[in-house]
């Protein structure tokens, strides 16, 4: 089954997307980004495969996404068709893998054995853990009329956990569309250097 979670501090921001999609699967909202802290998540979409006994079969990974962000073409304000095709193919590959696992369980070639699953766990640092702790404080302050103080706390969060796009985009200024993809976002993307925006999923066809 699918459990989809909106990493959104404001239900009003996420609600229209749910209204349009009318999902038939369980759809939850995580206002404090608790999953970022529990599962060491840094971006959306990210996925975790959990078997029928509650064991992690594939730890946190970039879902069906590949790293095409720096191929964004500012002139057409979109991705070139070639990049779009690769992204669509990767999504199809990942979706097919999920279906295979749903049917075949641990016999699926896409299910990691326990050692491989552990090898794919990304370690959290003390600074990241502190960032999550401060993020919860900031959200509380923001929702209790203390916006200036909250913004100071969020700035600390972004410094403590620079790889967290969840923190960065949630706490950045949004455009009229509600999407945090303004100058600050693209500046940060362009300064990534060799770092990936979506870490490559360890699965054939996902690069």
């Amino acid at each position, binding site marked *: *089954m699918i*459990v*989809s979670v*909106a990493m*959104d501090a404001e*239900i009003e*921001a*996420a*609600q*229209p997307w749910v209204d349009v999609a009318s999902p038939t699967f*369980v759809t939850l*909202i*995580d206002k404090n980004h*608790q*999953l970022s*802290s*529990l*599962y*060491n*998540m840094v971006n959306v*979409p*990210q*996925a*975790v*495969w*959990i*078997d*029928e*006994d*509650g*064991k*992690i079969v594939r730890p946190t990974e970039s*879902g069906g996404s590949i790293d095409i962000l720096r191929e964004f073409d500012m002139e057409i304000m979109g991705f070139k068709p070639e990049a779009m095709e690769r992204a669509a193919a990767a999504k199809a590959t990942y979706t097919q893998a*999920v279906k295979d*696992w*749903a049917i075949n*369980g641990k016999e699926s070639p896409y299910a990691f054995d326990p050692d491989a*699953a*552990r090898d794919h*766990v990304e*370690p*959290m*640092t*003390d600074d*990241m*853990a*502190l960032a*999550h*702790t401060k993020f*919860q*404080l900031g959200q*509380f*302050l923001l929702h209790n009329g203390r916006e200036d103080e909250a913004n100071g706390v969020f700035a600390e969060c972004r410094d403590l956990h620079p790889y967290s796009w*969840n923190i960065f*985009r*949630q706490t*950045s200024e*949004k455009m009229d569309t*509600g*999407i945090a993809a303004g100058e600050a976002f693209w500046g940060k993307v362009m300064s990534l250097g060799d770092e990936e925006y979506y870490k490559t999923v360890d699965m054939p066809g996902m690069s």
Partner: protein
Amino acid sequence: MITILNENNVTELDGVAGSALWVNRDDMAAVTGWTLKPEGFCKDEVCVPVPANKSGELIADDRVNLSEAWRLMGKPVAASSDGDVWSLGEAANDRNDAMLSLEAPDFSLPDFSGKLHSLTDFRRKRVLLITWASW
């Protein structure tokens, strides 16, 4: 009034805002699950001893300096500038150990009608947990 944030929970207690978070032992247990025993601060099978030279700083009669106790246990703490809101986080080591155990960490989150769902509600099924966001 002080507010404590811990694992997505919000608890309001009578208390004095300041540079340390003093609470009574019962409140500490109710909010965090950690209790003060002769062995130290304990939860489940784990006890963190209180160093003798720290005892005065951490414990006064039935009250505990929870912010210092939290730091003693190696866990992250954050407070508002007035010291009236405290966020008690979980340590990176504990999060990493939990992930490496491969037991999927449980959570309870609401759906869009406000109904809570826990990961453990979905046992006996294979779960694809997947995130998205409006931003």
